[in-house]
Every structure is written in structure tokens, then in C-alpha cells.
């Protein structure tokens, strides 16, 4: 009898106590809002007047009429595909270099992590100053070297790359920290054995470090894919700091999916219902990408 009551205590009561706060908070502040957004996606509503139920109309227009949606998707993918792989690879290389270092390791690690802790608002301003056409530092440098100033922020050709560069600058240090943590947990014996077998640094990097960091890599790749699909701060801050604030940058080349959603919901002409539908589509995309990533991650772990 006593064991049974104890069992209930440890299989029902205490797990509930420890897990309930998370589940309740998650439901209240994450899940319920998404459900509510889902409900709103069937409405035509501007935020204050009466709501009209319009069924699937919002979704139909997203997929058939809304060219801006598809453009924003392409923009997001383009910026993400340039920015994140480069910053992940750079982070890995940097971590590898630092892990071999005896002196200055801590200092360099902190220095390279600094961009990640800088407030996005500051990053937006500083990069505006760097890329600006007439007085920007980069263009003054180009001119000093005899080149011609480039309108980085005014042309649809260069602006997405400016954002990708911001991402690389900001995130490399974060990935470096993740990989550095992974490398620290690899046993020194493995490297020692490889060294005795006559392996050089490059071989050790590709044969030992990279394969053993697989779990870190899959974690980093999945989380950065989710982050990339939600890109908002960097492009928004880069293009709303100037006196002439434009939605989406030059010819909307930097309008990401979340910025488009934000603009529909809270811009000059709010369309809450339509924006909710946009957010639900975005949610679905993120879930699909995550599930595919998770599948790959699990398969790798079973190997």
C-alpha cells in the first residue's frame, strides 16, 4: 500500500509540479496567441472596425494574388542562404583556430563574441554609417583607393548583401562559441592518437573535428534556419533609421516575410486578418522546415 502511494506521488504529483509552469506559460503566451491568430486569419478586420468573416479568402489571395508575399519569401531565402552558411562555417573555422591557441584564447573569444551582444538598434545605425553612399566609411575607403562610391543601401542589387554581411558580422561569434564548446568536449586522446599516426592539422580537422561536431552542427543549422525565416530586426533597422524610411528597402529587395507581416499588421493601413493569415502560413513553413531538420538530426544520431 505504501509503495503504491509513493508511486503515485512520483509518477503523477511531482512531475506535474515541475512541468506545469512551463506548460501553462507556453500555452498562455505562445500557443493561445497562435490559435487566436489562426481564428483571425478567417476575418477581414483592420483592428478597430467591425470584423467580417470571409472564410479562406485571405489564404486564397496570399497564394494567388499577393506577389509581395512571394517576393518577401524569396528575399528571406536569398539573404539567409548567403548569410548563415558563411557565418556558421566561419564560426567553425574560428573555433578551431582558437582551440589550438594557448595564449589570448579567452580574450579573442570575448572580442569575437562582442558583435552578438550588441543591441540590434546599434547594429542598424552603425551599418547605415558604414554603407552610406556619400559619407559612409566603406565608400570613403573605396574612394581613397581610387574606386567609385557604390550606393549599397540604395540599390536592390547590393542591399540584400549588406544585410547578409550584417548577419555574418553578428552571428559568427555566436556559432564560434557553440563550436568552441563542442570542440572542448572532444577528448584530447583522439587528437593525440591521430598525431602519432602522422595526421596533419587539416586532416585532423576534417577527419576528427568536423564529424565529432555533428550534433552541434545539426542543432546550429536547425536553429539558424528558424531564425533566418524570422529575420526582421536587421533589415528593418537598417532601412528605417534614415530620414526617408522605406518599407522593405530599395524596391522592397530587403522586405523579409516577417517584415511584410509586421507591415500588414501594424503599418499605415492595418489588415489584421490578412496579416494573421500571413503569420499562419509562415508558421506552417517553419514547422515543416523544423520537422525535416529534426528528422535528419535524429537519423544522424542513430548512425
Amino acid at each position: 500500500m505504501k509503495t503504491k502511494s509513493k508511486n503515485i506521488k512520483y509518477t503523477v504529483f511531482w512531475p506535474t509540479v515541475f512541468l506545469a509552469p512551463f506548460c501553462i506559460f507556453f500555452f498562455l503566451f505562445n500557443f493561445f496567441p497562435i490559435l487566436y491568430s489562426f481564428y483571425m486569419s478567417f476575418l477581414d478586420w483592420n483592428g478597430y472596425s467591425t470584423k467580417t468573416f470571409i472564410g479562406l479568402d485571405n489564404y486564397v489571395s496570399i497564394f494567388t494574388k499577393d506577389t509581395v508575399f512571394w517576393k518577401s519569401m524569396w528575399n528571406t531565402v536569398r539573404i539567409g542562404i548567403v548569410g548563415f552558411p558563411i557565418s556558421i562555417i566561419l564560426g567553425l573555422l574560428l573555433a578551431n583556430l582558437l582551440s589550438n591557441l594557448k595564449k589570448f584564447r579567452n580574450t579573442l573569444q570575448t572580442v569575437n563574441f562582442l558583435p552578438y551582444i550588441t543591441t540590434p538598434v546599434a547594429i542598424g545605425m552603425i551599418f547605415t554609417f558604414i554603407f552610406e553612399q556619400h559619407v559612409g566609411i566603406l565608400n570613403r575607403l573605396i574612394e581613397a583607393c581610387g574606386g567609385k562610391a557604390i550606393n549599397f543601401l540604395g540599390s536592390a542589387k547590393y542591399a540584400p548583401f549588406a544585410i547578409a554581411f550584417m548577419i555574418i558580422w553578428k552571428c559568427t561569434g555566436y556559432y564560434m562559441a557553440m563550436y568552441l564548446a563542442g570542440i572542448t568536449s572532444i577528448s584530447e586522446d583522439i587528437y593525440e592518437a591521430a598525431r602519432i599516426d602522422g595526421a596533419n592539422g587539416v586532416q585532423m580537422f576534417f577527419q576528427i573535428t568536423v564529424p565529432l561536431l555533428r550534433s552541434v552542427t545539426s542543432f546550429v543549422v536547425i536553429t539558424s534556419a528558424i531564425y533566418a525565416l524570422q529575420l526582421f530586426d536587421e533589415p528593418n533597422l537598417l532601412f528605417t533609421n534614415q530620414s526617408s524610411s522605406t518599407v522593405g528597402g530599395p524596391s522592397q529587395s530587403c522586405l523579409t516575410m516577417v517584415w511584410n507581416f509586421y507591415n500588414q499588421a501594424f503599418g499605415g493601413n492595418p489588415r489584421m486578418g490578412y496579416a494573421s493569415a500571413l503569420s499562419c502560413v509562415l508558421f506552417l513553413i517553419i514547422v515543416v522546415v523544423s520537422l525535416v531538420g529534426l528528422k535528419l538530426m535524429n537519423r544522424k544520431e542513430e548512425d
Partner: protein
Amino acid sequence: MSIKNIKKAVLAVILAVISFVSLIPFWLMFSMSTYKSEMIFQNNPLIPSNFFSENLKTIFASNFVQSYGNSLLVSLVSTVVGVLVCAMVGYGMNAYNFRLKKALGNFVIMTMMVPSQIGIIGYMIEMRVVNLNNTLWPMMFTWFASGFGAYWMISFVKGALPMELVESARIDGANEIQIFGKIVIPCIRPGLLTLCLLIFLWAWNNYMIPLVFINKQDNYTIPIFVKSLASAYRTDYGAQLAGLFLATIPLLILFICGSKSFIKGLTAGAVKG
């Protein structure tokens, strides 16, 4: 010069260049904040000027102090509650066997995938209905159930907490709350510290949620305060940057002091994660 020395020199140059690129924008933030806005581009902005104290006066004359306090309050409450809730999940998922354990584990992984920005319209209306939309609460609530933190704490506790210790405490008659406070928390301290640093950082730098929720000066957080300096009759870049520079200081101190334990905490999480 031997090949080994050349290799070392090349390595040093590469590291120096990368670190330089990392530092330049950071340095620019400081050095530009020492200029009068109109003068920033007349000189070489890499060399500091003498207008820093004037810029400080400008921001202190508006409600910088209150915004700073708001940011601190929001970030601290978010961090404390968020980390505690995640640590509880970490212990709960490792210390007991219960029926829905596997389902809950998958649920936590799913929560990590659910982006908080997606439901922001529903969240805004929810907050309006419970009359909290004009307070600082909406900016804190989003960190109370951090999917990343929970997932991460589960793998951290698995690696860092010896279950024999918990078992023997149970035999000694300690209840679960005591065990959690006296044994679990000290065992997972490095992981807690790292998670604290990350959630504090994310809450402090959060931009979109304050942008949507804040509509009165009393509730400004730093990012919104700095943006508000731009909507005046002229954009005071110097003052904006001075504010941002001061806003970076707490993070700078936290991460410089915590850099060793930060990596240590990440390491223990990475072994499993």
C-alpha cells in the same frame, strides 16, 4: 624562419584581421557617440571627439534613466522566471518516470521550433483583453516559457546531475522541493549561468515586441527610447549612439566576467545536445 613559425605568423594575422573586423563597428559606436551629430562625418569618426558629455546630457534630459530602469526590470524578471521554469523542466524530465514523458519530450522540442513573433497579433489582443497592453508585462511573459531553454536544460541536467545523489537524499527524507533547491540547483550551476546570460541578452535586446506594445513614454525600453530620439525635429545620432553605448555596458560586463563559465556551460550542454 622555419615553416612552423611562418604558419604561426599566418595564423596570428588571420586572427588579428577577424578580431579587428569584429571590433570595428563596436568601436565606431563608442567613438561616434563622442561627436556632435552634425560633425560625425566631417572628421574621421574612428578618432573620438569631445562631445560625449554633451550627448550624455541630452539623453539624461529626456527619459533615459526610466527607460534604462524598464529595460533592467524587464530583463531581470524575464531571466529569473524563465531560467527557473526551464530548470524545473530539466529536473522534472530527468528525475521521474511518468506516462506522458516521451510525448512531453517531443512537445518541448516542438516549443523550441515555435517562433514567438508569429502569434504576436493574437498576443496583442490577448493582452488588450486582460488590460495589460500598457504595462511592461507583455515584454516579460514571452520569456517565461523558453523552448530553447527547456530543451537545453533537459540535456544539461541529464549530464550534470548524478541521480544517485537525488536517490540518497530521498531516502534521507528530503522532499522534492528541498532536493531541487539544495542539490539540483548547485549541480547545474554552470548551465544556469549560461542560460541566464542568454535570456538576459535576448530580453535586453528585444526589438519587435516592444515596438508593437509600447505606446507611452513611461514604458520605453532602451531600443524604443533610442528610436524615439530620431523622431524629434532632428535625428541626434550622437545622443542615440551615446545611449546605445551605455546600454551595451551591462551586457559587456556580464559577458566579460562570465565568458569562462559561459563556454563551460555551453560545453556541458553541447555534449548531449
